[in-house]
């Protein structure tokens, strides 16, 4: 096998290296050191050039910069083409991406094109005794964890779930090489056109940043009753989340869905109201410091992961809870 080295496919958010990229550089550095090989990073987009040194400070030995303006914002065809070209030229042994909007779309396509072996949504990445990448990922909604290895296919690829490893430490004295990627993208190769991008602004605290999340499920029963959750959230300076059925019913916007196929949150306090605690949902909130469950069924699975619980109709609990918090927090 001629493939060598670890490559991180970076992401740029608002002109900076995305947090996940800094996390990946940390993991990538460790793997590269164990292998005794180089860590490189690929940065795509018009402003990528300015970030080369930063990626080096976070651990990269080489940073490939692809500054084509077609890469300014995520375009599946363009990113796949650029990343695949680089991988075919540089032949990395391991390629790491973030399990983000970009990584989830890009990684499987890239893998399809390169013919490697890919594990998605990994919680842990390490090397086995044969120095092959071992990827640990949740399967069956999180009921089980599987480890996967790619024995012969190259590159070995993985997407890493954000916030599962600490970010790499910055060291501005590190030295490395910034390499502009030659060759432009052929616009004709971009088959899918981006017509528009719509941001759905949510009022108040962003779900991902909230210290308190009040989350509702099918048991809430109506869009109107969801207001009770909003009141509690606003008293606590937090945000509202929801389960998939609550989103399906239109009681909460889709962007508030928490879980395996929604957002992953790790607030200080997660108040789960009228939701059963399905494995696919709690996967999105298990990182919370305290989980509180309010459910009228004492057998509900949410009580198996909650720290505090009340077994009752939420309609009889929430008003008093909101009022008491108001009183305590204003004191």
């Amino acid at each position, binding site marked *: 096998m001629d493939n060598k080295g670890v490559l991180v496919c970076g992401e740029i958010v608002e002109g900076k290296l995305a947090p996940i990229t800094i996390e990946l550089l940390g993991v990538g550095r460790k793997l590269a050191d164990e292998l005794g090989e180089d860590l490189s990073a690929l940065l795509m987009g018009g402003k990528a050039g300015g970030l080369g040194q930063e990626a080096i400070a976070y651990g990269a030995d080489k940073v490939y910069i692809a500054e084509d303006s077609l890469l300014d914002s995520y375009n599946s065809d363009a990113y796949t083409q650029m990343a695949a070209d680089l991988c075919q030229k540089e032949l990395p042994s391991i390629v790491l991406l973030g399990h983000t909007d970009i990584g989830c779309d890009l990684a499987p396509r890239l893998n399809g094109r390169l013919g490697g*072996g890919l594990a998605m949504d990994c919680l842990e990445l390490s090397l086995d005794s044969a120095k092959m990448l071992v990827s640990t990922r949740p399967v069956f909604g999180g009921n089980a964890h599987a480890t996967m290895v790619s024995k012969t296919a190259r590159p070995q690829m993985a997407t890493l779930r954000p916030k599962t490893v600490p970010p790499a430490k910055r060291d501005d004295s590190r030295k490395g090489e910034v390499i502009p990627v030659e060759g432009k993208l052929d616009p004709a190769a971009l*088959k899918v056109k981006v017509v528009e*991008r719509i941001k759905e602004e949510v009022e108040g605290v962003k779900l991902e940043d909230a210290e308190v999340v009040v989350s509702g499920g099918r048991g809430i029963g109506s869009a109107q009753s969801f207001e009770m959750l909003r009141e509690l959230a606003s008293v606590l300076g937090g945000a509202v989340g929801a389960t998939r059925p609550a989103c399906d019913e239109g009681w909460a916007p889709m962007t508030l869905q928490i879980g395996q196929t929604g957002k992953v949150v790790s607030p200080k306090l997660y108040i789960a109201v009228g939701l059963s605690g399905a494995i696919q949902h709690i996967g999105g909130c298990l990182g919370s410091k305290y989980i509180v469950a309010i459910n009228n069924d004492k057998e509900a699975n949410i009580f198996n992961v909650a720290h505090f619980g009340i077994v009752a109709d939420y309609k009889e609990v929430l008003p008093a809870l909101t009022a008491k918090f108001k009183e305590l927090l204003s004191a």
Partner: protein
Amino acid sequence: MNIIVCVKQVLDPEIPPAKFKIDPATKKVIPPPGVPPVISVFDERAVEAACRLKDKQGGKITVISLGAAQAAEVVKHTIAMGTDEGFVLQDEAFEDLDSFGIAYVLGKAIEKIGAYDLVLCGRQSADWGNGQVGSILAEIMGIPVVTLACDIEAADKKLKVKRIVKDGYEVLEAPMPSLITASSELGLPRLPAGMRIMIAARTQVPVWKAADIGAQGPELDKAKAHTEVTGLSVPSRKTECEMISGDSPGQAAENLAAKLAKLL
């Protein structure tokens, strides 16, 4: 419009975690007795997307499912929803396929079906949840792919796709044929009703073997060998839940607030 939908039959993902059992030695899940397998949730939404397109502009929907012979049940379920025909791809050689292997076999079946304008998949399967097969399949077939669709329109040989992203959505325009993966934001799938249920019940679902679609030999072996599951375990999660009580639910709520206020 000719639409092909790839649907997978899976262990019911909504079984309570207590019923979830594995055999670590064989690295397999032991299905709890008496729980029938179901159609993977996002694949059902992909079928719904196909049916909506057919409702609007007519056409034909063909469904394929790679799995055990019982996968005929999920194909029938889609026929009851409104699809036209379906095939099960079943062969000893297809056991324990990884994402690449599955995509390869599905691609071979699609080649056999012939002309198509759109291939639909779910965003990820409800069991192993790789979220890869659709994209690999598109790359193998050399057609464009759009992932995470929540709305699809077809007009003038083009597909207009609304795609979910973290903080909103994108609108994309893809040529035909393309492959699109469906997300749950597409909306609830229709419930089978009336005549369609009877049509589905009477349908015989043909089974295609490896030889029927030419998915065999060194090509299949190569497609199989991309990843290997080397371990399967159930993570232990045990939290002591302190139940908060009171003379009334309201009282319990106040006790809870007092307790939490101290911790925050």
